């Protein structure tokens, strides 16, 4: 195929240009040209210098929601008593620092009434404050959509802060308090230990009192999350890791106060506070990992609440939320808008992008009478629908329910740390009790001395390193994966990934690129291809784009008419030229050679029609990754909703032996359930909405970042990029993380085995306890950090 040496790229989104672009001046589409003009007019060209090379600007939403859904925005505005308005918008496509700058600068420039605009890269949320009317929200949102981002009210809750985020903040404040207290109490303790002989009783007691002054409020405030969790568990008749922690901290503090009041030699304030500090570090790391998963789900919910336009009794259009559409109502869907209800087409002919619902990448041609579903995007022409289901009754809602049901089944996974806690807690408490009884009855010690020794057993065994063992590894592992564009969404994903022995791939969009490519045809002349490409360059249809890509850059025909649901028509110098479906080109004879796959027909006056065949290519490293997984001992399967012939062909190409085709979403779930019933641990890799339930039904799931929103939400792990190497890398890191967690746990156990006898013998002074505790915690942390560095030897290539 002729490839022009000018590998031109769109000036806005950076996609390679088709020939069509020359007509529009270095842009791939009208939307990008509009966004570029807007950015240029605002004097914000610096954006193009700032964004990272690999991160393209969001391709402008010709497939996004139309402008109409924005009309519902003023309802989401919160008006403060002083008349200022506040709006939180969820922004889709926000992915680098340059985006933050661009959006903030665009909204504040020429809008002096905007008091502050602050975009958040972590939650992909834009917070706007302005003085004026709530209706201005629409202008700001239009501005942001004009730049190529998609917006929706954030989380539906208006300005209300996320309770989980508030909880995380509280945790951070407690962490700070515990850190401050640990450092200061330790300072005083070190002076007590080092001056033990020279220091008088009065001085030592003074230092102990000062320590108590710092430690008591700290324990009361920073220890709350543990006390509450322990109380809740005890009330429910269970125990968890927080029970020994709470008992240990409270007993230690209480004993130390008593010792201080009696001018005793030993006080354990430093141990109690340091324990809280280390535990809060683990808790905070854990909470941050969960927070990312949460924001992804909130994001999805926000994007699904676009209002729909309904014709009322008087024939006037009205904008209402999708759930309030009554059955039989007439719904208007503009070109480019997402359909909000299930229904039948009453009027109009158009092409729909059904990828969200069916996973099919090729547009679906619809005419009056055709059934359409919520979530599809109307591409070419306006439609009138008669609603047959809305809100919770739609197929989309049904799929989300299927997904939630499957997810609940998986929520029963019990974390390793919790399982250990269940076994560990009774053992610790029994050991302490035995120690106490043994000293009283066998050692004939005074009861308070025996109690002191029993408490020191509790302090020494307090699962400080144990509580850090898992979160520390998880944070380093997820940090390492994130640097390679792999996002762990679920906190338990790593643990569930490690025992995986079966990898099930979806076909379209997962093993393949989900994008058709023209198949080589030796009988095709360059002149024919060029003429067809001239028409194709005028269209955004995936097959046209594929044809244009194959032909390379070149001129575009003028006056091409796109017939919705049919194809392209052009009146050329030698008569009409048509490029489109079989029926559109007037091909009636059935000369099917059994060749399956998408096709385009090309007809010219006085010449036999030509057929272009397309196929979805596998990702470039698909075969290599499949081979690598098989070599590592995984069972690899292909599970596809496509026909058997196509699925078999692809499986043979990438080297997968076990194929199951013609699977509907429910079949996929059933197949995965059957695999799990065999005792297998299944990893599902998929991208379509039809895979979403299957992703949730598997033990653990991966999905490419090109997948639809719902699927990304259902998946435990989302990976970026064109390759599948992420699958092998994720599995390798998970196995390595499991090894490290086991090492950490083994180390902790070993440490306890050594330390407990020392404590039971009554030799654990505060100094020994503090040194042992911080020593074991640091060792566990250092071991976890080994994962963050260079690639593991068994990692991806």
């Amino acid at each position, binding site marked *: 195929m002729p490839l022009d040496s000018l590998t031109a790229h769109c000036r806005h989104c950076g996609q390679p240009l088709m020939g069509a672009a020359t007509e529009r001046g270095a842009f791939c589409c009208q939307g990008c040209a509009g966004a570029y003009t807007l950015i240029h007019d605002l004097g914000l060209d610096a954006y193009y210098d700032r964004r990272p090379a690999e991160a393209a600007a969001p391709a402008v939403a010709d497939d996004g929601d139309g402008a109409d859904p924005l009309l519902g925005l003023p309802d989401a505005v919160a008006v403060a008593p002083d008349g200022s308005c506040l709006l939180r918008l969820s922004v889709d496509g926000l992915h680098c*620092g*340059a985006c933050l*700058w661009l959006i903030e600068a665009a909204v504040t420039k020429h809008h002096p009434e905007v008091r502050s605009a602050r975009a958040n*890269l*972590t939650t992909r949320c834009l917070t706007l404050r302005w003085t004026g009317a709530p209706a201005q929200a629409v202008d700001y949102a239009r501005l942001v959509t004009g730049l190529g981002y998609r917006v929706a009210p954030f989380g539906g809750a208006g300005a209300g802060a996320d309770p989980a985020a508030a909880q995380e*903040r509280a945790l951070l404040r407690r962490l*700070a*308090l515990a850190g*401050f207290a640990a450092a*200061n109490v330790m300072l005083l303790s070190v002076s007590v230990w080092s001056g033990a002989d020279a220091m008088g009783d009065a001085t030592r007691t003074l230092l102990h009192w000062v320590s108590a002054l710092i430690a008591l409020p700290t324990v009361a405030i920073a220890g709350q999350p543990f006390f509450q969790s322990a109380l809740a568990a005890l009330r429910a008749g269970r125990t968890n890791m927080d029970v020994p922690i709470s008992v240990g901290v409270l007993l230690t503090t209480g004993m130390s106060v008593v010792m201080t009041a009696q001018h005793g030699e030993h006080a354990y304030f430093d141990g109690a506070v340091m324990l809280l500090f280390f535990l809060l570090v683990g808790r905070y790391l854990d909470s941050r990992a969960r927070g990312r998963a949460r924001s992804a789900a909130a994001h999805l919910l926000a994007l699904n609440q676009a209002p729909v336009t309904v014709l009322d009794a008087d024939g006037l259009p009205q904008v209402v939320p999708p759930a309030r559409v009554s059955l039989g109502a007439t719904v208007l869907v503009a070109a480019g808008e997402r359909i909000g209800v299930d229904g039948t087409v009453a009027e109009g002919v158009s092409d729909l992008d059904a990828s969200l619902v069916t996973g099919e990448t090729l547009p679906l041609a619809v005419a009056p009478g055709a059934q359409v579903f919520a979530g599809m995007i109307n591409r070419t022409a306006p439609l009138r629908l008669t609603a047959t289901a809305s809100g919770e009754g739609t197929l989309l809602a049904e799929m989300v329910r299927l997904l939630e049901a499957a997810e609940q089944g998986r929520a029963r996974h019990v974390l390793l740390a919790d399982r250990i806690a269940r076994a560990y807690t009774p053992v610790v408490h029994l050991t302490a009790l035995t120690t106490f009884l043994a000293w009283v009855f066998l050692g004939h010690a005074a009861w308070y001395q025996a109690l002191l020794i029993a408490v020191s057993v509790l302090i020494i065994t307090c699962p400080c390193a144990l509580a850090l063992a898992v979160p520390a590894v998880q944070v380093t592992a997820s940090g390492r994966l994130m640097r390679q564009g792999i996002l762990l969404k679920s906190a338990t994903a790593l643990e569930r990934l490690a025992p995986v022995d079966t990898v099930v791939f979806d076909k379209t969009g997962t093993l393949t690129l989900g994008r058709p490519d023209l198949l080589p045809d030796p009988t095709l002349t360059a002149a024919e291809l060029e003429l067809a490409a001239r028409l194709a360059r005028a269209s955004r249809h995936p097959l046209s784009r594929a044809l244009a890509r194959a032909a390379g850059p070149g001129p575009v025909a003028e006056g091409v008419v796109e017939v919705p649901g049919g194809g392209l028509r052009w009146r050329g110098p030698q008569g009409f030229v048509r490029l489109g479906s079989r029926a559109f080109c007037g091909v009636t004879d059935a000369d099917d050679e059994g060749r399956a796959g998408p096709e385009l027909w090309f007809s010219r006056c006085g010449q036999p029609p030509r057929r272009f065949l397309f196929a979805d290519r596998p990702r470039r490293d698909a075969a290599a990754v499949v081979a690598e997984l098989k070599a590592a001992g995984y069972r690899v399967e292909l599970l596809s909703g496509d026909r058997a012939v196509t699925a078999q062909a692809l499986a043979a190409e990438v080297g997968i032996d076990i194929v199951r085709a013609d699977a509907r979403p429910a079949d996929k779930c059933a197949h995965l359930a059957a695999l799990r019933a065999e005792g297998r641990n299944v990893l599902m890799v998929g991208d379509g909405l039809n895979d979403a339930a299957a992703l949730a039904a598997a033990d653990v799931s991966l999905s490419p970042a090109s997948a639809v929103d719902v699927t990304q939400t259902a998946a435990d792990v989302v990976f970026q990029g064109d390759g599948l190497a992420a699958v092998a890398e994720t599995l390798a890191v998970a196995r390595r993380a499991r090894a490290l967690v086991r090492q950490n746990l083994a180390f902790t156990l070993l440490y306890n085995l050594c330390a407990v006898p020392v404590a039971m013998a009554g030799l654990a002074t505060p100094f020994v306890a503090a040194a042992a505790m911080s020593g074991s915690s640091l060792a566990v942390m250092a071991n976890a950090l080994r994962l963050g560095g260079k690639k593991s030897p068994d990692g991806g290539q």
Partner: protein
Amino acid sequence: MNSLLFLIPAALLLGGLGLCAFLWAVRDGQFEDLDGSATRILYEDETPLPKRPV
């Protein structure tokens, strides 16, 4: 040992100041978006970054 009588309060006061500053920063929302802050610091309001070497 008399110096302890003012050294300990002084140490606690300084530590407390640091703690208060941190708590203020948390309340102020400076820990809300660690990813964003990491890139934001590189940008001036008007002049862009020097061009990246391609």
